[in-house]
């Protein structure tokens, strides 16, 4: 039989048993809705986590460290001494890193503890230098106020948590001034018995002293993201200033004590460098190239790999739970079609007497099953979406009560819509297999005798 005729006859048969067909279709819809709701929750949560991490602006960066430094900080090396030829993370290395393909910029991490004075009150926090190029990487999307007006501007952007410490109305801080108190590092002249490294040109070769300083900064913006989270440093930067301003302060950093006792051919070295890639997709290649250069690397991609594994398992479990309802719906389809065989036994006999092949009868039942699956799938996706909207609404009401920003915990991407509908049709076809085969095998003479 031609496809069009099969479709017409199948729809006619479904219309004849409209109540039973509708209830079966509804069963499939509930199963698909359950599947879509659970999976879209998993996808939504994954998207939420990824978005939060992406907005940190660090997905396109690689932190480069000198290999032996990190080993030394963690535990005694397995070998008696670190490799003597470990490459220093100095200006030469920085230039080499800048030459790597797909690298946008390379800069040193500047982050230091400080005491902020605002309205006469002291607040402890961490200052982080941010390159002006960070403006376009997404981490400052949704900023209240504005980004730094220039690379040398005496301006600050506050992370929302710190801004709340300063004022119950964070937005009112924009345009106000605050004082940053920090420890400036001042170089001392070389002393006898100090470290020497041959041709010593390090300005800090004689050590350094710490001098308290103050700097007035104007608050220009407030952000909810954490572009200077603890990644590559020792704590979250809550007060962000232009990188060049941060470098010019020569503020003492936590690694200064370690650097003071380090001697590498007399050249100044960096504790770490941040390498920014053109896009997150290129981070992996850049990381490998840097490793080949003899440096240690770390990127958020490493961390997100574990996150991805977690969400894969999470999604799989949600899929299993969601599929249970679909499995029940499958039994409903089988029941409906088996009942249809009993009711239409004589009709099947007539069809066969008029020339229907076993294949035609089988296909007719398959089309009926797949129509129920298709309609159930479409309805189910709609129901699943509605469930998602309702849960998101409820969640956001709760978050609002908790003074937390609203968020979308459900995500129904197109591929999930198509997958759910395709799965509903496939499951329906599988459910129709037994009834269709049974109907096709009916002996026409016996079927015609059936009253």
């Amino acid at each position: 039989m031609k496809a069009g005729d099969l479709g017409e006859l199948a729809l006619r048969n479904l219309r004849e048993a409209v109540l039973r067909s509708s209830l079966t279709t509804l069963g499939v819809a509930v199963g698909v809705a359950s599947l879509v709701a659970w999976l879209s929750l998993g996808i939504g949560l994954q998207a939420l986590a990824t978005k939060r991490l992406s907005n940190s602006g660090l997905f396109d960066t690689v932190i480069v460290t000198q290999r032996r430094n990190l080993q030394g900080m963690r535990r005694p090396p397995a070998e008696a001494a670190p490799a003597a030829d470990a490459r220093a993370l100095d200006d030469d290395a920085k230039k080499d890193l800048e030459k790597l393909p797909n690298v946008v910029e390379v800069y040193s991490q500047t982050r230091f503890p400080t005491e902020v004075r605002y309205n006469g009150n002291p607040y402890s926090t961490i200052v982080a230098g941010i390159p002006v190029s960070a403006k376009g990487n997404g981490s400052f999307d949704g900023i209240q106020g504005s980004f730094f007006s220039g690379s040398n501007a005496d301006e600050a952007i506050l992370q929302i948590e710190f801004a709340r410490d300063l004022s119950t109305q964070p937005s009112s801080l924009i345009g106000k001034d605050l004082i940053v108190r920090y420890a400036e590092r001042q170089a001392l002249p070389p002393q006898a018995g100090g470290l020497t490294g041959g041709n010593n040109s390090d300005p800090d070769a004689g050590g350094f002293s710490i001098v308290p300083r103050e700097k007035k900064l104007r608050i220009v913006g407030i952000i909810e993201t954490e572009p200077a989270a603890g990644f590559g440093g020792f704590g979250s930067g809550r007060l962000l200033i232009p990188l060049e301003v941060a470098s010019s302060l020569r503020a003492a950093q936590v690694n200064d004590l370690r650097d003071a006792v380090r001697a590498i051919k007399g050249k100044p070295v960096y504790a770490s460098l941040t390498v920014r890639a053109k896009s997150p997709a290129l981070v992996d290649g850049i990381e490998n190239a840097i490793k080949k250069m003899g440096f240690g690397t770390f990127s958020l991609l490493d961390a997100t790999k574990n996150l991805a594994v977690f969400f894969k398992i999470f999604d799989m479990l949600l899929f299993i739970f969601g599929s249970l309802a679909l499995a029940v719906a499958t039994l409903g389809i089988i029941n409906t079609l088996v009942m249809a065989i009993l009711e239409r036994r004589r009709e099947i006999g007539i069809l066969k007497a008029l020339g229907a092949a076993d294949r035609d009868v089988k296909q007719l039942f398959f089309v009926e099953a797949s129509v129920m699956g298709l309609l159930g799938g479409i309805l189910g996706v709609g129901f699943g979406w509605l469930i998602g909207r309702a849960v998101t609404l409820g969640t956001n009401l709760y978050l609002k009560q908790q003074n937390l920003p609203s968020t979308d915990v459900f995500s129904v991407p197109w591929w999930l819509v198509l997958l759910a509908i395709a799965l509903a049709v496939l499951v329906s076809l599988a459910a129709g297999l037994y009834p269709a085969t049974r109907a096709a095998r009916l002996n026409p003479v016996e079927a015609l005798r059936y009253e």
Partner: protein
Amino acid sequence: MTTGNGVAVRAERVSRHYEMGAAVIRAVDDVTLEIRAGEFVALLGSSGSGKSTLLNLMAGLDRPTGGAIFANGRNLSELNSLELARYRSRTVGMVFQSFNLLPRMTLEENVELPLRLAEVDRGERGARVQEALERVRLEKRLTHRPSELSGGEQQRAALARALVNRPTLLFADEPTGNLDSATGESIMLLLKEIQQKLGMTIVMVTHERPLAERFADRIAALADGKLLTDGVNS
């Protein structure tokens, strides 16, 4: 189409036995019968004589357990289920005692059904349905459902459905069994007219000897699955 020498269907020592537990029911037992093209043959017998079983075997609705049935020059026993379905669709037309029209379809849809199964083009179907219904004089009842027709009209509609694929063999199983005598006679006249006008081979099962004697060219009488007599109706 014939099996050769003007023979439309030939049953050769055909048997159809059923096993019911330990017992064997010999519904048709070693029957040999030849039906010539264009002939009107009545299979006559009482209930349980095996006449309907023999008709089903010749119509390709059932398979014999012994012997062979030749139609279209081929042994039906050797056809696979798809080939047998094609034989039923393109060569055979069937009329039943209880009409067997699909109640939820209109007359037009019922008559069109064999055309769908035979994959006839949609464009051609309307004219074929019209032609078949005109032949049984029901062309004005296209949109009626079977429940809106009398018994005689339903049987004529069933006849139109059997003719719509232009078969060469028409098998009728007690076509007047559910009709009063006057209506039954009108159906028989219609069958005779079809045989004469279209040159169609008709095999009819009946238990009414007068009907067989009045309309059939030949009468084959069966009892207990065996062919008792086979002769030209004088």
